[in-house]
């Protein structure tokens, strides 16, 4: 899609970001002048601290990624919401109180107090660095996503801008994201999401044949298909020599049987809609696909259509969209050169309800449960995508997938989670692995638990955690409404799921869009600068001073920290650009996996097991961290979305490492501890 900046959006955005930054600097400088970071926070009221929990935890990634995944695939994105919140329960009930009893604030502190060993500092420093960088990737991707529709820039511009701004802030001033700023951001994010949800409910559902730009996606037909006998299918599969016509695979939901059909090009050519066009024979990788390519005789432009239907019914031909990156690097949309300004060729916005219960075409305002009940009995148009490369370049075809509402509201529609609908237990591992990592991850993230100690006593700490869980939970309930609202808003960009929430807000109101983007953007700035500071600290304190035993005076320390910030910032920018095609929530899932695999075994054993040894901790952290990182880099998702290789060449059987690497970390730690235990 083409994104253009509007004046009001840019203005609101600029004002908002300026105020937050000014406030951060002001409060940050005051915090420094007082007795110190933690004592200054000792005066924070528990309620404010609780909302600040939400401000800390609800990064832009939760907001953008979860809404996007729900908008494109339905219920599956909500599984992340549930997992992220569950992680809090682990953190509060199991880790926070015992850790406080040790009198320590973080994982690294606790390790240090118990062993005071260089090996452990090295391992903990590297794992802090690895987790921070992995957590930075989704934040950077999210930053690019926010900048794009707001200021009309390319994704990588956004990433570079955010990276540079944060590096400048950190290097020149060192921004401490204070409790009050996080309180402000947290409450604004929750309040405006609630406003957006109320607007979604007030708008209700309306059927529409196309998106918000009034482009109507055509459906042509019916056309007759011919069954390909099973032995011929086998023959084609073996030789790879499929006929030059569309091939459609149909499923009979009643008997669960599958059959393969083809459609004669001549039958398609005879349809009145295509009198002025030529149906092209399918060559190369376009064969064995349910697509047909049609060339307009007047303009010469080629459009792509998809063929779908139910077994027993006639097949219909639906207008698809496609984007081609030619071998010369040009970008084509639907066969013509993509424009730069509104009104010029671009992919059409999508996301509509195609059928409502009782044949209505508009529901009017809906109640919170009525919303789900109505959707359950409706039909929505989701979009699938396939990438095909041919002599012209690489094309991604986006095709219509009419989907019953009951399927949208059930788990397992996302291709990565589709395994739960298969019979083989091995297919379910990716899902189980993710849910385990989310459950264990929160307590293992280095920067999350700190806030538990920033109020005056234990009772206030508990109270603020309860407020935190309440506001975070409320927000996560809203994500389901926001995602489904986006799904049916007619304004989705088929190429990018991360864009769903901002585009939903834009379809409602330009001002609201600007405010929500600004809140999300400042959240990114805060999170990114916090993470960069944490990594710089790990490099200066843990790695250089404690491990290499290099004495640094104050000035040198600051200089090393600044250099480290610039390097980490540059790495984050690079990774943010490389990983831009992945849903940000999926990336956060990975960060949680690395954190849980590297840190949780050490954290839990230190708190609950007396037999733990120094060597055991070092081995556990190292093995947990390297195995989870290696697993991610060798997974099918990284292969396809980052390296541009095929998913089949991936080395590990599923993408989420947690279910293997978390137990592996525990086993390593325990075995090594037992072996090195002093008699």
């Amino acid at each position: 899609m083409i994104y253009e900046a509007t004046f009001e959006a840019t203005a609101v955005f600029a004002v908002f970001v300026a105020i937050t930054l000014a406030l951060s600097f002001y409060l940050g400088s005051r915090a420094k002048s007082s007795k110190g970071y933690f004592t200054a926070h000792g005066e924070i009221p528990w309620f404010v601290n609780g909302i600040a929990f939400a401000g800390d935890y609800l990064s832009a990634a939760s907001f953008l990624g979860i809404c996007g995944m729900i908008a494109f695939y339905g219920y599956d994105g909500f599984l992340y919401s549930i997992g992220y919140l569950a992680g809090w329960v682990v953190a509060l009930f199991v880790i926070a109180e015992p850790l406080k009893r040790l009198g320590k604030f973080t994982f690294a502190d606790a390790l240090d107090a118990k062993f005071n060993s260089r090996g452990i500092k090295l391992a903990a420093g590297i794992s802090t660095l690895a987790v921070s960088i992995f957590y930075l990737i989704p934040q950077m991707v999210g930053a690019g996503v926010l900048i794009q529709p707001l200021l009309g820039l390319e994704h990588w511009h956004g990433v570079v801008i955010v990276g540079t701004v944060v590096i400048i802030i950190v290097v020149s001033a060192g921004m401490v994201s204070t409790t009050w700023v996080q309180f402000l951001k947290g409450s604004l994010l929750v309040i405006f999401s609630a406003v957006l949800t109320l607007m979604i409910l007030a708008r209700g559902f309306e059927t529409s044949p196309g998106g918000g730009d009034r482009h109507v996606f055509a459906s042509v037909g019916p056309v007759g298909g011919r069954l390909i006998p099973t032995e011929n299918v086998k023959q084609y599969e073996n030789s790879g020599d499929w006929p030059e016509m569309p091939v459609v695979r149909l499923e009979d939901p009643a008997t669960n049987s599958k059959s393969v059909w083809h459609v004669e090009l001549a039958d398609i050519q005879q349809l009145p809609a295509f009198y002025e066009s030529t149906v092209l024979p399918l060559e190369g990788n376009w064969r064995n696909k349910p697509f047909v390519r049609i060339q307009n005789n007047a303009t010469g432009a080629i459009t792509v259509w998809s063929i779908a239907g139910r077994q027993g019914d006639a097949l219909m031909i639906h207008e698809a969209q496609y984007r081609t990156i030619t071998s010369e690097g040009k970008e084509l949309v639907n066969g013509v050169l993509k424009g730069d300004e509104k009104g010029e060729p671009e992919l059409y916005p999508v996301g509509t309800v195609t059928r409502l219960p009782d044949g209505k075409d508009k529901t009017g305002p809906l109640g919170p449960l009525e919303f789900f009940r109505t959707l359950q009995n409706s039909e929505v148009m989701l979009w699938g995508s396939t990438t095909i490369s041919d002599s012209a370049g690489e094309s991604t075809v986006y095709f219509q997938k009419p989907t019953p509402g009951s399927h949208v509201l059930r788990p397992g529609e996302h291709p990565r989670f589709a395994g739960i609908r298969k019979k083989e237990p091995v297919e379910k591992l990716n899902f189980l692995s993710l849910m385990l990592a989310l459950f264990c991850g929160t307590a293992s993230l280095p920067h999350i638990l700190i806030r538990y100690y920033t109020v005056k006593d234990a009772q206030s700490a508990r109270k603020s955690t309860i407020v935190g869980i309440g506001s975070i939970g409320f927000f996560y309930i809203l994500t389901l409404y926001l995602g489904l609202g986006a799904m049916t808003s007619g304004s989705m960009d088929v190429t990018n799921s991360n864009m769903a929430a901002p585009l939903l807000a834009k379809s409602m109101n330009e001002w609201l869009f600007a405010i929500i983007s600004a809140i999300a953007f400042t959240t990114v700035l805060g999170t990114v600068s916090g993470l960069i500071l944490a990594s710089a600290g790990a490099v200066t304190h843990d790695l250089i001073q404690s491990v290499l035993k290099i004495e640094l005076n104050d000035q040198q320390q600051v200089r090393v920290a600044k250099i480290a910030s610039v390097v980490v910032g540059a790495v984050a920018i690079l990774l943010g650009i490389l990983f831009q095609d992945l849903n940000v929530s999926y990336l956060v899932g990975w960060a949680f996996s690395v954190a849980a695999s590297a840190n949780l075994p050490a954290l839990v054993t230190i708190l609950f097991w007396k037999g733990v040894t120094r060597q055991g901790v070092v081995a556990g952290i190292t093995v947990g961290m390297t195995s989870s990182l290696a697993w991610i880099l060798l997974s099918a998702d990284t292969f396809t979305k980052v390296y541009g290789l095929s998913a089949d060449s991936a080395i590990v059987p599923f993408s989420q490492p947690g279910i293997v690497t978390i137990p592996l970390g525990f086993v390593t730690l325990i075995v090594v501890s037992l072996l090195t235990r002093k008699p």
Partner: protein
Amino acid sequence: MEKRNSRIGLVLFGIYLVLYGGFVLLNAFSPETMEKTPMAGVNLAILYGFGLIIAALVLALLYGWLCKSDDSEVTERGVDE
């Protein structure tokens, strides 16, 4: 008294683990069950999901309330500061 708090914590954690584990296993091994609409025409996936979020809050409240009676710790911390 702190022992008592951490025992309460672990018990509540156990309860939540069962609820969360049930949700995950039901999703993984019997996704059809999640499609049933037992109440108000809303399916089990949504009801259970919302239920888990509400349960987290209820357990946290319970934790705060059970530990609240624990005065000694508060005064002890108060003296520290």
